[in-house]
């Protein structure tokens, strides 16, 4: 299954495309990716980039590319992520550049992706895993109405597991 296209006032959420590689690579080879295991080499980043399609193929869901309508540029990724080793899917969000931040784009994208998980996939609950030092992500989780449930250890990282409000909230 491939991703449907979701639309919000300022964004288009769509399947990642091979042409998104330069923007994604710039992000994952930069310090911006420090809170999610980066920075990585371009070769490591490419293997991770490829895994976006594999995730969709394996699960029938996955993370979308976040595209700004105004510039038609991909500026991040958002959506449900469930690699082996996670107890349940998480809603993840990442903006790739400093210029994409501070305008509520991550909130807009995460809201649309969460709605899609509930309406199209029929999920009744959703988590997000956040580095306790990632203040921006913590603030966004709060805006989304998610609350800390517990601290977990995953692949050597200490993370806070946030629980989102359900579909009927």
């Amino acid at each position: 299954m491939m991703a449907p296209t979701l639309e919000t006032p300022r964004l288009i959420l769509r399947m990642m495309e091979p042409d998104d590689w330069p923007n994604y690579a710039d992000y994952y080879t930069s310090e911006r990716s420090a809170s999610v295991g980066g920075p990585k080499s371009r070769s490591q980043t490419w293997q991770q980039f490829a895994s976006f399609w594999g995730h969709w193929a394996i699960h029938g869901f996955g993370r979308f590319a976040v595209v700004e309508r105004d510039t038609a540029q991909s500026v991040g990724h958002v959506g449900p992520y469930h690699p082996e080793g996670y107890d349940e899917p998480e809603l993840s969000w990442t903006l790739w550049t400093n210029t994409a931040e501070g305008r509520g784009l991550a909130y807009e994208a995460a809201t649309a992706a969460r709605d899609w998980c509930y309406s199209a996939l029929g999920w009744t609950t959703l988590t997000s895993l956040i580095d306790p030092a990632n203040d921006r992500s913590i603030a966004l989780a709060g805006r989304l109405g998610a609350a800390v449930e517990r601290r977990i250890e995953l692949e050597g990282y200490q993370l806070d597991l946030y629980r989102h409000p359900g579909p009927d909230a």
Partner: protein
Amino acid sequence: MNRFTSTFPRLETERLILRPLGHEDFPAMAEFYGSERSRFVGGIVDPAKAWRQLATEIGHWTLRGYGRFGVELREGSSLVGVIGPWFPHGWPEPELGWDLMAGFEGKGYASEAARATRDWAYGSLGWTTAISLVAPENKASEAVAKRLGCTYECDIEHATAGHVSIWRHPGPDA
């Protein structure tokens, strides 16, 4: 398999079927990558990393238009191997790779499948040459390379693959 990977090609040989990798291959991949058999090809790693490898193998098809196949026996079997063209970012050149799962060694399956993917790479992808990267200590894999008519070219130090030998395949007109 699903609507996405169903667009990928399938190949057949005398004894084998080469088809897209999918979710159902994860247990075999996890066992392979958690075992000694993977020590020359990036292992030994935990199931979480094996899962990511599987996801990467599938996405390689999207990014390159080709990738490695899941191989099984014609009469039906668990995963025999992960075999075919492989060219992730940073690789010296496109290669043909073969990972053989436990219990399927010594029967010529790796060379039979690799030869089919080489024919496909030359015939359908337009490759004019192909290499395979083999760890010098991996004598079983070296034997497969020789069986495929490869000739030793040189040893290299590679950031991802480590210390490996480049084996050059006979070209499409050989």
